[in-house]
């Protein structure tokens, strides 16, 4: 099944050409990832707008906190689905316990879409530290990461899924520019 995301989106916005968020969601969807959960970020609002649209044929479970989103996605993955977790990089802190004491030791992996607030140091002060250390933090835990290229979102999704290695690794698609 191929998604049809060219219909009217909430807010009256008519998309006659595919935008970056559509390309990202479709990239995961067409690779068999049809369940999404997470906590929103302003840099990811295009993704959430698509998933909140009732006509989008994907499961979307809004979560109260990023660790609970990982928990739900972990249950889905254990039971045979292919979920994707979406979050602001501030949510990685909450997520670390689930990543280190569940996903990385049970070998139940999924792609994460993580925004990069605080990149370059020109953001609100609460994002400065996690923005500066984001990729270092991912490297510490061996999480492969790809920065989304807005000019070629499908290639970025493919790179992230290549790192995911058919479920063998947790991989991260970093969204630096808002989609």
């Amino acid at each position, binding site marked *: 099944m191929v998604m049809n995301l060219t219909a009217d989106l909430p807010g009256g916005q008519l998309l006659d050409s595919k935008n970056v968020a559509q390309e990202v969601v479709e990239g995961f969807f067409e690779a068999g990832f049809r369940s999404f959960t997470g906590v929103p970020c302003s840099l990811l609002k295009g993704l959430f707008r698509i998933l909140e649209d009732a006509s989008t044929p994907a499961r979307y479970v809004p979560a109260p906190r990023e660790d609970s989103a990982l*928990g739900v996605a972990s249950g889905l993955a254990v039971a045979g689905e292919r979920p994707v977790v979406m979050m602001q990089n501030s949510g990685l802190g909450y997520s670390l316990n689930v990543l280190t004491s569940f996903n990385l030791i049970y070998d139940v992996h999924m792609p994460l879409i993580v925004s990069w607030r605080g990149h370059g140091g020109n953001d609100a002060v609460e994002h400065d530290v996690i923005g500066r250390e984001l990729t270092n933090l991912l490297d510490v835990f061996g999480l492969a990461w790809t920065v989304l290229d807005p000019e070629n979102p499908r290639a970025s999704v493919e790179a992230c899924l290549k790192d995911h290695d058919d479920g063998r690794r947790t991989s991260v698609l970093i969204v630096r520019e808002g989609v």
Partner: protein
Amino acid sequence: MLDIREAIHVLLSGAPSAVCVTTCGFITRDAYGAADRDGNFYLVGSMGMAAPVGLGIALARPERQVIVLDGDGSFAMNPGCLPMIAGQRPNLVHVVLDNAAHESTGGQRTSPLGDPVALALASGYTAAHAVSTLEELRGIDLTGSPALLHVRCEPRSRRPGRRVELTPQQLVARFRRGLAARPLQGEEAVRC
């Protein structure tokens, strides 16, 4: 007040085709010792995540009842997941085995829980019950889902079960086989 291992045995033997997710620490060890079966999925870490993991399994496999075994400490750690669970209408029974202590770490008292039954109902669970005797537990009607079951338990009078001997990866593989297999019937589903 119930013995935790006895409560786990009664719950799982009464639901032979259900799958079960257990919170880390002594509850995982007690379930492993008292009612091990392929349909049990044991968390060895990630305290507070048994219910979200159970929700994910329930969403993927709506034909299977999911029983989540939480403790009072793990329930207190993540009450924010209750409205999320209620909103998805899963086929799930959320059990809180409450002995008012973090026994796995030495018996320290838990932070106040509030009333789990009231929390569940206010969060949108279809049903919520509290039991404090074996007779009440055996007689409970768990119609309506999701449901919460608050089980008042005694502090453990015996040592917890042994640690889970399977590796986490083996637990995943075994649980997937349990999900794929025909659910067992009656007492054959529980190896005591």
